[in-house]
């Protein structure tokens, strides 16, 4: 279906105005659009899918939010409101309205509106009062908080009052370890209708799909109760980079009813956790890997191994596997053949060797707490945590390689291409199904329980 799409055009802007002025301008713009497009004496109804409020802490975030809103607008009529606090500006509220018109070949034209608000002073702390009059009635309102939301602050709860869902990206949090804990507590204090969506959770979707797919055939369902080991590689070091790995683990634990018994983390980015799965224990290991193509915090591989009814199995999923890399220790591999890319045997040995160092490092945390009186978990020197605004980057060439080994047969390879992960695509993915995701909520709680142990 061909679509005629106009370039986004700033059609109104004013400094030091009130929300009433913005509403009047919006009414004029909508009226003009309806009259201009009503060639057949029949004014077409306005079409709107949602109100998206983007809170941008920085100018760069504002540009990013505008671009994402425009991209969404190319496909779906929506009202977007982008808000940035600008303490240095002269008035209390500067506003502008940008519109973009779609003219599908076989459907009525639609108009997307992006309202930009620069606020200063008390208004910035009362977002709900600011945006409420602008919201489109009858369609969901989503609050997309770029950067790090102020969890635990009244300002955020006030903004959430008028929203159906909050969208965050836990891969972009400053101080992710602390902020993630705030995120996990939010559902307990927010209103009951609030949905919570995390773009990082969306990025993990291919991993969840691939793991779920392995266990889908009825004859493999028994293997779920035979899982003994889970290994997750993640990029970067430090607990702030283990959020995605913890979410994946939390997802499995919540879905399969595993209870966390103990966990220890240590230097080199290694984490070992033990879950009680009823009649057996499941060991979950995180390993930090340095791979150029992975952003800090990104998951690089997931391995699940176990045995059921006398049959062993191993599922290995790799993100952009680097097949050119030489095995780290050829002699070791001779003793423990691991079929090319699957270096789980090597990983196991490395993990055992680091175990004592991990335990020591874990204890260092409490030693430091006892010595300084500071909060455990936050007080330990951050090094080597690497967290910055560049932790996510555009991906254009992404592959998941799955290796399946059941019994003694040769590994079955399966290659899948991952879609490009720009913010607009991830937001659409999240918002198309709504933000009320019980599985995410459960996984978040289980992940939070795990990272509390780091």
């Amino acid at each position, binding site marked *: *279906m061909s679509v005629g799409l106009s370039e986004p055009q700033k059609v109104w802007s004013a400094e030091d105005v009130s929300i009433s002025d913005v509403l009047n301008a919006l009414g004029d713009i909508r009226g003009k659009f309806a009259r201009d497009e009503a060639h057949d004496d*029949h004014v*077409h*109804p306005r*079409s709107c*899918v*949602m109100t998206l409020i983007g809170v941008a802490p920085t100018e760069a975030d504002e540009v990013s939010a505008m671009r994402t809103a425009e991209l*969404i607008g190319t*496909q*779906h*009529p929506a009202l977007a409101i982008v808000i940035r606090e600008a303490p240095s500006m002269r008035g209390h509220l500067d506003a502008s309205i940008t519109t973009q018109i*779609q003219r*599908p070949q*076989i*459907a*009525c034209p*639609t108009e997307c509106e992006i309202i930009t608000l620069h606020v200063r002073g008390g208004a910035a702390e009362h977002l709900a009062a600011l945006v409420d009059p602008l919201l489109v009635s009858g369609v969901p309102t989503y609050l997309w908080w770029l950067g790090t939301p102020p969890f635990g602050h009244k300002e955020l709860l006030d903004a959430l009052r008028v929203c159906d869902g909050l969208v965050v990206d836990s891969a972009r949090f400053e101080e992710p370890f602390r902020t993630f804990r705030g995120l996990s507590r939010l559902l307990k204090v927010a209103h009951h209708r609030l949905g919570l969506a995390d773009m990082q959770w969306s990025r993990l*979707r*291919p991993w*969840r*799909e*691939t*793991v*779920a*797919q*392995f*266990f*889908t*055939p*009825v*004859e493999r*369902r*028994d293997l*779920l109760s035979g899982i003994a080991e889970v290994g997750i590689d993640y990029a970067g070091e430090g607990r702030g980079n283990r959020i995605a790995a913890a979410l994946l683990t939390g*997802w*499995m634990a919540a*879905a*399969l009813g595993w209870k966390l018994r103990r966990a220890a983390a240590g230097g080199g980015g290694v984490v070992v956790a033990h879950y009680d799965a009823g009649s057996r224990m499941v060991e979950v290991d995180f390993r930090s890997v340095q791979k150029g193509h992975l952003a800090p915090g990104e998951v690089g591989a997931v391995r699940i191994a176990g045995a059921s009814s006398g049959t062993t199995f191993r599922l290995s999923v790799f993100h952009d596997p680097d097949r050119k890399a030489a095995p780290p220790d050829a002699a070791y591999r001779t003793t423990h053949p691991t079929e090319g890319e699957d270096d789980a045997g090597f990983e196991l040995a490395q993990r055992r060797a680091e175990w004592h160092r991990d335990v020591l490092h874990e204890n260092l945390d409490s030693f430091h707490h006892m010595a300084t009186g500071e909060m455990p978990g936050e007080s330990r020197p951050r090094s080597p945590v690497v967290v910055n605004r560049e932790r996510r980057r555009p991906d254009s*060439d992404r*592959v998941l390689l*799955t290796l*399946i080994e*059941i019994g003694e*047969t*040769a590994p*079955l390879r*399966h*290659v*899948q*291409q991952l879609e490009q992960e720009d913010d607009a695509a991830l937001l*659409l993915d999240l*918002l*198309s*199904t709504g933000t009320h*995701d*019980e*599985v*995410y909520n459960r996984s978040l709680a289980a992940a939070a329980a795990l990272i509390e142990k780091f």
Partner: protein
Amino acid sequence: MKLEEAPNPLAEGLHDYRIADPAVMVIFGATGDLAGRKLLPALYNLAKQRSLPAGFAVVGLATTPMTDQAFKQMASDKIHQFSRTQPIDDRVLAAFLDMLSYMTVPSPDFKALGQRLQELDNSNHIPGNRVFYLATPPPTYHLIISQIEAAGLHAGNGWKRIVIEKPFGTDLDSARELTQTLHKVFSEDSVYRIDHYLGKETVQNILAFRFANTIFEPVWNANLIDSVQITIAEELGIENRGLYYDHAGALRDIIQNHGLQLVALTAMEPPLAFEANAVRDEKVKVLRSIRPLIGEDIEQSAVRGQYTSGWVLGEKVVGYREEKNVAPDSQTETFAALRLFIDNWRWAGVPFYVRAGKRQPKRITEIRIQFKRPPHLTFGREAMKEVDPNAITLRIQPEEGISLKFGAKVPSAGLRIRSVTMDFQYMTSFLVEAPEAYERLLLDCMIGDPTLFTRADEVEAAWSLVDPIEDAWRNGRPPLETYPGGTWGPPSAARLLQQDGREWHRP
């Protein structure tokens, strides 16, 4: 709970991600038009969405000798040409092509095919699951099915499913014969009769519109509905399908399947659940409740026409008899219209007008529910003279959506009411793109969900309605009329409604 009924706990919350078991899809007629235009591009798009499980494999079969490599090249070319999503992702395509292999139809039997399937089972961890897709002309169905049976490919571990394309027979007898042949080898649960129309999002939306809302169902009956009009119009002629079409005609090609399916979906009672047998049971009840047209009813309630030369979308077009592979004295109808009555409590007395034709002014498929006029003219005759009765229009294609027509006061000092339309368009209201019908249906088949496939009794009920009309038409009752290309059918089509004091809605 039995193991096979236990859901996969890890699949919970993966919205729209429907996971199929590893299987081999055997495509008979793999070098043909259907495979190239629809099946291979649909499978590629499923791979792109990561919906094909690890181990999934396709074995293409046809009579043309070809190597695996040549088949993969052909598949690649067709995918580049016909895929819904563009540009083609080379890495997805490469991974998908790795799943393909080709065999020249083995003779004298399918044992070599059986060996190939066994090898794939072993290498790909496939527990014997098979989809046999018959993308071949219907006359080959019997032979292929009997060969599958002879080679024992229908037996053993895992599930075995067979997909056949419409037409499911050419009349009631041939449809029953086909079903008998299928049932010798496959149970009805394993037979997937594909009518791609049912895979369209907007067709499924008829059910969502009716049964996910409370406000429409109370008025969805003879108390308030005056009539229902279903239009399936194409601006195209028969293109290169003369050989097939001249033996089929609009009644068999469109109304017997698409047309009656739309009647059934519009008129059916709420099913207990959106589940295969519950939905299909209700559809069959509607088809069986349609009053058969027999004897003189046919002349009063059925119209047929054939297009002559004319103008369509500003282009001059030739008449049907001048088309390639059409007999110069052909009596085949390219337009058919029926007036049907559903003899049940809900629909007693409500006419369903169904029309389908080629070389119509435009391409459109829609269902129009026309309501009765208000029982009393509160505002007087003068104020209401520009007001049409309320109507709900469900547009299937091309502008998928729903519109509601109602009266509103014209802004003025006086009191004048005019009809206005409230429009809803799918494309502007959702954040996702609809999949192609074959993608949905292929995945449904792999998952084992036959809800959107046609069951044997549906097919037979539809043929039971169509056969007497076909017989009468073949005997020249009533005589074939003509209509210029680019018009809404022959004059009798308009008269069909005029005799009831109604007229066709202009789509």
